[in-house]
C-alpha cells in the first residue's frame, strides 16, 4: 500500500494535481503565521535594552538565514536521491529549491547588512559568518547557472546534484563560523545546547516567523516544481490536454 502511494506521488501527473491542491492551504497557513509573527515581533515584543528597536530586523534576518541553509540541505538531499534512485520528482524539487534558496540567502545578507550599519557601524565586514554566507549565495548561483547551461534536463540535474553535494561542506562552516573564529557577528542565542538566552517575548515571534518562512518555502517550491514538471512533460498527452482546457 505504502509502495503504491509513493509510486503514485512520484508520478509527475499526480504530483502536479496534489501539489496544486496543497498550495492554497500552505499559503493560507503562511499568511496566518506571518501576521501572528509580525504582531508579536513589531508590536508586543519590547525594545532591546542594548539595540533598541533595531533588533526587530532579526525577525526576518534569522529565519531567512536558517532557511538559506535548510533549503540548501533539501536541494542537496533531493539531488542525491535523484542521483542514486533516478527519481525525476527529486530532481525537480532539487532544482526548484535553488532559486528560492538563493533569494533567502540574499535576504539574510541584505537584512544583515542593514542591521549591521547602525549596530556595528559598517554595512559589511569580511568575517567568517558573512563570508561563508556569501559563498552560499555563490553556490546557489552556480547551481542555477549550471542547470541552465545544459540543455538536457536530466543530465543537467545530475551535474547540479554533484555540485550541490560538494557545496554541503559550506553548511557546517556557516553554522560553526561564529564559534570557530572570532567574528563580529554574534554567537547563537537559540540553537545551542542549554536554554536559549534570548527572552521569551522575542523568541515567540522569532519562532512564528521561522515557521512562516518554512511554510512559504513549502508552497513556493511546489509552485516552481509544477512549472518544472510542465516543462519536462510538455510532450505528454496529459500536459497537452491540461494546456488546451485552460
Amino acid at each position, binding site marked *: 500500500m505504502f509502495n503504491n502511494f509513493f509510486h503514485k506521488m512520484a508520478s509527475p501527473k499526480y504530483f502536479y494535481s496534489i501539489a496544486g491542491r496543497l498550495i492554497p492551504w500552505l499559503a493560507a497557513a503562511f499568511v496566518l503565521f506571518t501576521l501572528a509573527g509580525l504582531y508579536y515581533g513589531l508590536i508586543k515584543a519590547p525594545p532591546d535594552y542594548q539595540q533598541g*528597536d*533595531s533588533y526587530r*530586523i532579526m525577525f526576518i534576518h534569522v529565519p531567512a538565514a536558517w532557511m538559506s541553509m535548510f533549503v540548501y540541505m533539501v536541494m542537496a538531499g533531493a539531488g542525491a536521491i535523484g542521483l542514486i534512485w533516478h527519481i525525476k520528482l527529486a530532481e525537480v524539487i532539487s532544482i526548484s529549491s535553488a532559486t528560492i534558496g538563493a533569494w533567502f540567502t540574499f535576504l539574510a545578507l541584505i537584512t544583515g547588512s*542593514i542591521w549591521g550599519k547602525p549596530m556595528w557601524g559598517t554595512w559589511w565586514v569580511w568575517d567568517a559568518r558573512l563570508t561563508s554566507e556569501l559563498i552560499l549565495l555563490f553556490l546557489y548561483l552556480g547551481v542555477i547557472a549550471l542547470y541552465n547551461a545544459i540543455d538536457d534536463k536530466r543530465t543537467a540535474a545530475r551535474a547540479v546534484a554533484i555540485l550541490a553535494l560538494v557545496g554541503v561542506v559550506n553548511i557546517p562552516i556557516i553554522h560553526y563560523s561564529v564559534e570557530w573564529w572570532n567574528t563580529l557577528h554574534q554567537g547563537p542565542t537559540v540553537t545551542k545546547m542549554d536554554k536559549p538566552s534570548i527572552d521569551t517575548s522575542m523568541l515567540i515571534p522569532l519562532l512564528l516567523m521561522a515557521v512562516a518562512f518554512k511554510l512559504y518555502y513549502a508552497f513556493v517550491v511546489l*509552485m516552481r516544481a509544477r512549472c518544472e514538471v*510542465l516543462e519536462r512533460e510538455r510532450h505528454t498527452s496529459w500536459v497537452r490536454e491540461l*494546456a488546451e482546457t485552460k
Partner: protein
Amino acid sequence: MNLNEFFHMGGYAFYVWTSYGIALFVLLLNVILPLRQRKQRLADIARIAKRARRNTT
C-alpha cells in the same frame, strides 16, 4: 504605544522598514514569478499543440 512611535521604531525607522520592505518585495516576487511562468507555459504548450494538429489535418 501610538502609531507615530510605531513607525518611528525608536529612531531606527529607516533600517527596520527598509529590511521589512525588501523582505516583502522578495517574498511577493517569488510568488508572482512562478504564477506567471505557469500561465505562460500552459499557453505556449496549447499554442504548439494547436499548430501541430493543424499541420497534420
